């Protein structure tokens, strides 16, 4: 394509948007609305991922040891456990430390522990974090096989639930995003159809003086893309501002139930803008192509 032809297309595309101001405004508004919802779901999915990764990395495994092991044996066990595939870190928690933690957790009820009379019923333990929570059961099995281990404990069900919930949320968000994409494409296709109708004389003239199909189509495709991109940029600004506000709110006030912090603004903004603009271009081009293909039959 020649440069001046490109200029011609872009000029014609913008001119047509200006000419159909009302329809273009309506189309842009609809695109903004769908992209906002798409963006919100995208943000939710990203935050779920963010939270899930954080939670997953917090999945811990307690390995309780038999009583009365020498420090030497404990050290060898520690290295043995570290060598198990899927183990990220191993921390030894002696029974003394465990008791102190318990006292701390129980707070003012810790006087109950006084009844122990200096006896410590808690076992020595290893606190293990996992590199991949999916491998938890395998890791637990390997560790159980090591001698002198009393019990391996981890949040088996909680883990499964978490993985399951994130999966469901991700899939349903994806479905909603897809539906909204179709709606946006349909709206843009209709707007372009009206433009095409308004300019059918011009199209007719272009065809009988010998303009190629692509030459006739291009301005309308540009128009669709421009509508999509304007919608995407507006939606990005709105969503970005809202997210910035919300993330500050969460950071400063620590709303009670939000024990998991949301993704920082800087981390989310670029991927969100990139996604929305890509979607804007794609729905714009697809929408116009659908209309134009039907309308421009030589």
């Amino acid at each position: 394509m020649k440069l001046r032809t490109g200029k011609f297309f872009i000029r014609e595309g913008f001119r047509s948007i200006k000419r159909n101001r009302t329809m273009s405004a309506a189309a842009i508004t609809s695109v903004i609305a769908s992209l906002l919802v798409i963006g919100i779901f995208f943000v939710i999915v990203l935050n779920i991922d963010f939270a899930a990764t954080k939670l997953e990395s917090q999945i811990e495994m307690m390995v309780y040891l038999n009583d009365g092991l020498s420090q030497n044996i404990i050290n060898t066990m520690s290295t043995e456990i570290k060598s198990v595939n899927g183990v990220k870190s191993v921390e030894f928690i002696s029974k003394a430390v465990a008791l102190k933690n318990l006292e701390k957790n129980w707070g003012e009820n810790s006087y109950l522990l006084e009844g122990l009379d200096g006896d410590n019923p808690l076992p020595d333990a290893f606190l293990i974090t996992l590199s991949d929570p999916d491998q938890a059961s395998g890791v637990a099995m390997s560790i159980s096989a090591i001698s002198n281990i009393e019990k391996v404990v981890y949040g088996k069900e909680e883990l499964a639930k978490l993985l399951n919930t994130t999966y469901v949320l991700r899939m349903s968000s994806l479905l909603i995003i897809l539906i909204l994409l179709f709606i946006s494409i349909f709206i843009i296709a209709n707007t372009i159809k009206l433009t095409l109708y308004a300019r059918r004389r011009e199209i007719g003239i272009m065809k009988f003086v010998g303009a190629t199909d692509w030459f006739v189509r291009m301005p309308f495709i540009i128009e669709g893309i421009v509508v999509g991109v304007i919608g995407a940029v507006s939606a990005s600004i709105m969503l970005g501002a809202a997210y910035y506000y919300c993330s500050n709110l969460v950071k400063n006030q620590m709303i009670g139930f939000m024990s998991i912090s949301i993704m920082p603004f800087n981390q989310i903004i670029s991927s969100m803008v990139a996604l929305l603009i890509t979607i804007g271009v794609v729905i714009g081009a697809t929408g116009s192509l659908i209309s134009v293909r039907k309308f421009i039959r030589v």
Partner: protein
Amino acid sequence: MIQFKNVCKEFADGNKVLKNISLTIDNGEFVFLVGSSGAGKSTIIKLLLKEIEPTSGSIIIGDKDITKYKRREIPFHRRNIGVVFQDFRLLAEKTVYENVAFAMEVIEAPPREVRRQVPIILSMVGLSKQSGLYPSQLSGGEQQRVSLARAMVNSPSILIADEPTGNLDPEMSWDIMKTLSEINQRGTTILMATHASDIVDRMKKRVIAVENGIITRDEMRGGYNGEA
């Protein structure tokens, strides 16, 4: 050269608009296509422009059978044929100059070529002074001359005029006929479909009459209703 060889056209509803038409038009000829409405004149024009395909037969322009063209070749075929219509088909929001330039722009002619060619063609149809006006500011005859300029600006070898004087009063019609004659004298083949018997009778050009889908008459220097 334009050549129809045993061309038939039957529409989907079974209506046979052209029945085995054969005709030859040489380069540089001026031909009137006459006949009552629905006789098949428009079908012949649409076939030449490849807006529709014949049911059978072949149509040759130059040395190529245009029925064999692929879809993407159609635009290039049309660049060789200028067309003017009864209703002018000008773009109201473009000036005279822009309307003519548009025909060059959409086939991606270089801007320098557009700036050179458009004034030449406008002076040929006698509209140099009106180049900045909009179609609504022109008389019917002037509008038709703009559309003639647009049809000729890409120097096609064939000019098809579909009832070009249909919306014009007699004086304006003769203006257009004069311009058409000039274009013809420069070597462009002209095929003009018309109902204007007085024009056909006075021009004394070749007349092809179509009725009910067949050619009923084809004579050199003919009249509208037979020998003039």
